[in-house]
């Protein structure tokens, strides 16, 4: 990249310099032309002024007075035919066919600029000419003097730019080496104090990235560890029951053990399902597909789904009737949330009790409350509800401790809140509140 920068920079400099030189060339040339032309004209005037003297016998050439003299010539013509006076290097024929004004002619293969003028008596024509090569030479020298430095300046510039770039890139190079030298799993933040001001923002952002990656990896590790741990007991139960079945001497004993094996497998499958659900919900960038859902209708369907397990314990699940309550939510996630709430309520409710579902709606939010008549949760413990695998009475029920974690996670994805309260007659009421519309600006 450094090379590219250098090439671009030097190329630009050379191009601009050359363009400037070219511009100067044309500008200078123009000005020079004017100056020389003026000079020619003036010389002619001077000569004409001198024409007052008698020129009859003069037939000489003027002395070379200047280094450029060889390139300048003049002719004095009488009546347009007789050459009365001329410079040493002037040809014998008329330099220009014109009697007045400027002309560009070629004489002996060289380019000449010739000015012709008449004297007041109109007897004489003065022609003053100049080899254009003179002008070319001057301008050429000027331009060359402008471009020569480029030859030396460019390499010098190249060196200076190279060093400058190297110094600017140095902090980046240091940072790069630091990052490259790390082991793949090293996510310790970079030392920010050592980084110079230019790369400090980059280093800070890298650190933030490391932090996010570390958190993500940590979550995954914890999850895997939790899952493995949580599955040990169901698996231990299955294995032990199978051994009991194998060693059973009575049919009843064997049957009971084998049924326990099946129950244990079902439970393990349930744990795995909940774990998978939670794992799918965990990633930060989980995409929630919101659409308009009727909370009442979805709730009614979920209540119908849970009828089977409720009936097994003779529990009645009731839902208060009401108008449709529309919210913006991901319907399948909403179903999972409600299923888990109802599942918990039925699990923790004693036989022949009632689970009540109620939906309330206001302009700015809509909530659903699921209340059971189970043992309830002491106020102190309510904070821990929803912590993964936390169960209040692990042995008394067959829950997995993951249901409320799932409920909380889905609520969070919808910017909804979850609240736990005690039912006055005993039991737990879980309230999930969804925001309905953007809050009004204050």
């Amino acid at each position: 990249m450094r090379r590219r920068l250098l090439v671009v920079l030097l190329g630009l400099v050379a191009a601009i310099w050359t363009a400037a030189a070219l511009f100067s060339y044309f500008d200078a040339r123009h000005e020079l032309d004017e100056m020389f032309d003026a000079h020619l004209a003036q010389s002619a005037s001077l000569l004409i002024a001198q024409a007052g003297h008698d020129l009859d016998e003069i037939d000489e050439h003027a002395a070379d007075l200047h280094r450029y003299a060889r390139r300048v010539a003049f002719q004095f013509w009488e009546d347009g035919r007789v050459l009365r006076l001329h410079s040493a290097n002037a040809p014998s024929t008329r330099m220009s066919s014109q009697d007045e004004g400027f002309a560009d002619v070629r004489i002996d293969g060289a380019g000449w600029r010739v000015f012709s003028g008449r004297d007041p008596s109109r007897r004489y024509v003065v022609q003053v000419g100049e080899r254009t090569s003179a002008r070319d030479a001057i301008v050429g020298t000027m331009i060359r003097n402008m471009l020569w430095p480029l030859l030396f300046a460019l390499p010098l510039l190249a060196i200076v730019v190279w060093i400058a770039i190297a110094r600017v890139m140095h902090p980046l190079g240091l940072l790069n080496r630091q990052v490259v030298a790390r082991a793949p799993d090293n996510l310790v933040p970079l030392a920010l104090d050592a980084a110079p001001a230019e790369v400090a923002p980059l280093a800070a952002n890298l650190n933030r990235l490391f932090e996010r990656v570390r958190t993500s990896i940590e979550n995954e590790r914890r999850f895997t560890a939790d899952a493995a741990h949580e599955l040990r007991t169901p698996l231990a139960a299955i294995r032990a029951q199978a051994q009991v079945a194998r060693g059973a001497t009575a049919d009843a004993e064997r049957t009971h053990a084998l049924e326990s094996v099946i129950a244990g497998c079902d439970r393990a499958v349930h744990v795995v399902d909940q774990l998978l659900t939670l794992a799918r919900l965990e990633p930060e960038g989980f995409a929630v597909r919101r659409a308009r859902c009727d909370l009442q209708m979805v709730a009614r369907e979920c209540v119908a789904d849970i009828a089977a397990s409720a009936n097994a314990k003779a529990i009645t699940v009731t839902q208060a009737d009401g108008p449709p309550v529309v919210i913006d939510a991901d319907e399948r996630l909403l179903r999972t949330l409600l299923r888990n709430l109802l599942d918990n309520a039925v699990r923790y409710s004693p036989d022949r009790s009632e689970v009540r579902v109620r939906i309330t709606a206001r302009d700015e939010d809509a909530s659903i409350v699921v209340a059971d008549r189970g043992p309830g949760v002491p106020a102190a413990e309510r904070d821990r509800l929803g912590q993964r695998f936390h169960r209040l009475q692990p042995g008394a029920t067959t829950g997995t401790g993951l249901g409320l974690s799932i409920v909380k996670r889905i609520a969070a994805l919808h910017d909804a809140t979850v609240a736990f309260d005690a039912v006055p007659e005993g039991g737990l009421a879980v309230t999930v509140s969804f925001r309905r519309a953007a809050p009004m600006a204050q």
Partner: protein
Amino acid sequence: MRILVVEDDPLLGDALQAGLRQRGFDVDWVRDGVAAEGALRAETFAGVVLDLGLPRLDGLTLLRRERARGARVPMLVLTARDATEDRVSGLDSGADDYVVKPVDLDELAARLRALVRRSTGEPAPVLTLGTLKLDPAARTVTLGARPIELQAREFNLLHELMRNAGRVLTRRELEQRLYAWGEEIESNALEVHVHHLRRKLAPALIRTVRGVGYVIPRDADDLERP
């Protein structure tokens, strides 16, 4: 031998109880730490199988409390926590063994037997007295070369007496060690079992100490006496 199983998971607890019973133990099963504490104070157990994740009083705390009050009953921790620091913490809190779930029932039974042996100072797994040999693992009894057929309760009684050879065990102690809760103990069941053992093995084997209990002597010589 009477074992207390402390496990809150219904399926696993049930399996442990049934499985250890199949292997000759008498098993009492409680589901939380408070019940376990109560049981340990009220009864005598040969060993305890203790889960750590218990409601109301967790396993480690129970372990420490029991050891602090001087309980010497062998306790085997059976848990899902497998990290090294958990193992160290469990053993240092007073566990005699630390096993991670899932566990093979035969292995669990063997470990329990080993713990019980160690607790009573028996060097050898097989108990011998003269020509009488009792193998707790195989649950066999031989007198000389002849195998003796014993009922489960008789075997357990003989085992208990031989384990404590030379020491008089009271009726109450024997009943505690041999009967789990909820089992009906007929009023003279113990006498009946002792009678059967004398008949099947040797009349002089079990000595009655009037008003106190029963004892099996340490030395074989005493056996020969009429």
